[in-house]
């Protein structure tokens, strides 16, 4: 394994906070699916399992913050100085962070997907409903959710490199997801709004299924298109992260 990647994994393995953060993903899935059933969801409705599985994509908000923490956390605590002393070329630092956070994002997404399957199976059997694992929709929704977890982890690395202040970076990212993109989307119209990152991720992970009348659920891209758009954003953020990191003075 490249030395920069070993270093990143060792950093992650020796602190607790990022793992506590990621644990919120499966917890969100459990709460979300339970809420879906408890709020009167009909387990005999064939569309309901898809809505349950779409919660995997929502857990990506935590891999986003995880990615931000991996970079902005180092700037905030000053450990970035030691990191750049080890790898003065710096490019390897960012690529290693992208790889490590992407891998952890994938693992977190898979855990959330597994959790979604188990929780859904438990609720459906408790309520006497049946759902079919073989449904193409199941795997499309779960797969899209895992992909969103990976993409957001990598985008988080980019956001953290661009906005080095940890609090500012997390606030900016969450504000974008919760408020800014919705308002911007209304200003530019849904034809353009569906290309914005959170809307694109909604089509990728089919999170729109979880809110039947959400502002953003109208006029989304097809899942594959959403995935390609997310790939584009991920590459753009990664490239920006590398470029800005190479140039900047660390004082």
């Amino acid at each position, binding site marked *: 394994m490249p030395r920069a990647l070993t270093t990143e994994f060792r*950093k992650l393995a*020796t602190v607790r906070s990022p793992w506590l953060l990621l644990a919120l993903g499966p917890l969100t899935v459990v709460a979300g699916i339970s809420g879906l059933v408890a709020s009167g969801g009909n387990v005999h409705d064939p569309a309901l399992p898809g809505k349950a599985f779409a919660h995997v994509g929502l857990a990506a908000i935590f891999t986003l913050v995880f990615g931000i923490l991996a970079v902005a956390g180092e700037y905030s605590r000053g450990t970035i100085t030691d990191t750049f002393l080890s790898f003065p070329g710096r490019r390897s630092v960012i690529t290693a962070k992208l790889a490590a956070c992407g891998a952890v994002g994938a693992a977190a997404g898979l855990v959330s997907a597994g959790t979604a399957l188990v929780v859904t199976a438990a609720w459906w059997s408790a309520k006497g409903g049946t759902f079919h694992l073989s449904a193409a929709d199941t795997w499309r929704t779960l797969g899209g959710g895992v992909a969103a977890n990976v993409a957001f982890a990598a985008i988080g690395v980019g956001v953290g490199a661009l906005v080095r202040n940890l609090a500012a970076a997390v606030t900016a990212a969450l504000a974008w997801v919760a408020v800014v993109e919705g308002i911007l989307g209304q200003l530019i119209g849904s034809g353009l709004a569906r290309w914005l990152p959170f809307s694109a991720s909604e089509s990728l992970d089919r999170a729109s299924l979880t809110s039947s009348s959400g502002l953003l659920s109208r006029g989304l891209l097809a899942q594959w298109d959403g995935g390609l758009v997310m790939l584009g954003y991920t590459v753009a953020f990664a490239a920006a992260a590398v470029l800005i990191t190479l140039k900047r003075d660390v004082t």
Partner: protein
Amino acid sequence: MTDVVARGLTKTFGRVTAVRDMSFTAPAGTITGFLGPNGSGKTTTLRMALGLVQPTGGDVLIGGVPYARLAHPRRRVGALLEATGFHPGRRARDHLRVLAAAERIPDRRVDEVLGQVDLAEAAGRRVRGFSLGMRQRLGIAAALLGDPEVLLLDEPVNGLDPAGIAWLRGLLRRLAAEGRTILLASHLLGEIAQTADHVLIVSSGQLRFAGPLREIGETNEALESAFLDLT
């Protein structure tokens, strides 16, 4: 034998010139004291030497090569910088293991330097609970980790108690006697007077004196009056 050589080093931040046309050599086998008032450009100079800050002009060569082009920087150069941080939730030994991973340095060496800075018993504790002096010792352990032939240290005695200061002085003398190059930035004249062979005195980003300590006065008082004249 690895000298540290600055050639016409200059750094401007906006309209402020932090370092102006600085040239000096810190020869191998000696302790070079780097003296100057707060804000005189010492830290910026060290950060440029370590590739953390891009010079506006000039460069610093370590054994003839800029830091950023060293193949194994941690095995060649050890650095202690003031703003170097720790993750408060990481254990001291793990902090060093993270740095060791960059050069595939074995855990055995991590334990060795922990013993050397007298932190063996605190190795399993999270840095959150460390005193300033213990953090400083951990930073010194990090600098020693790769057994480097060059040490660049920024205010290393900060937070150390008198016994710690005496220990560090002895350690640096021993390392210099082995032929290593030590550049020791400080604003504590007494510390430099007792430790250094050569001195560089900077003020407002400009080099005011470079030469053997004995030329300027080996006692604290002599060094102080020279320092105050020059800065």
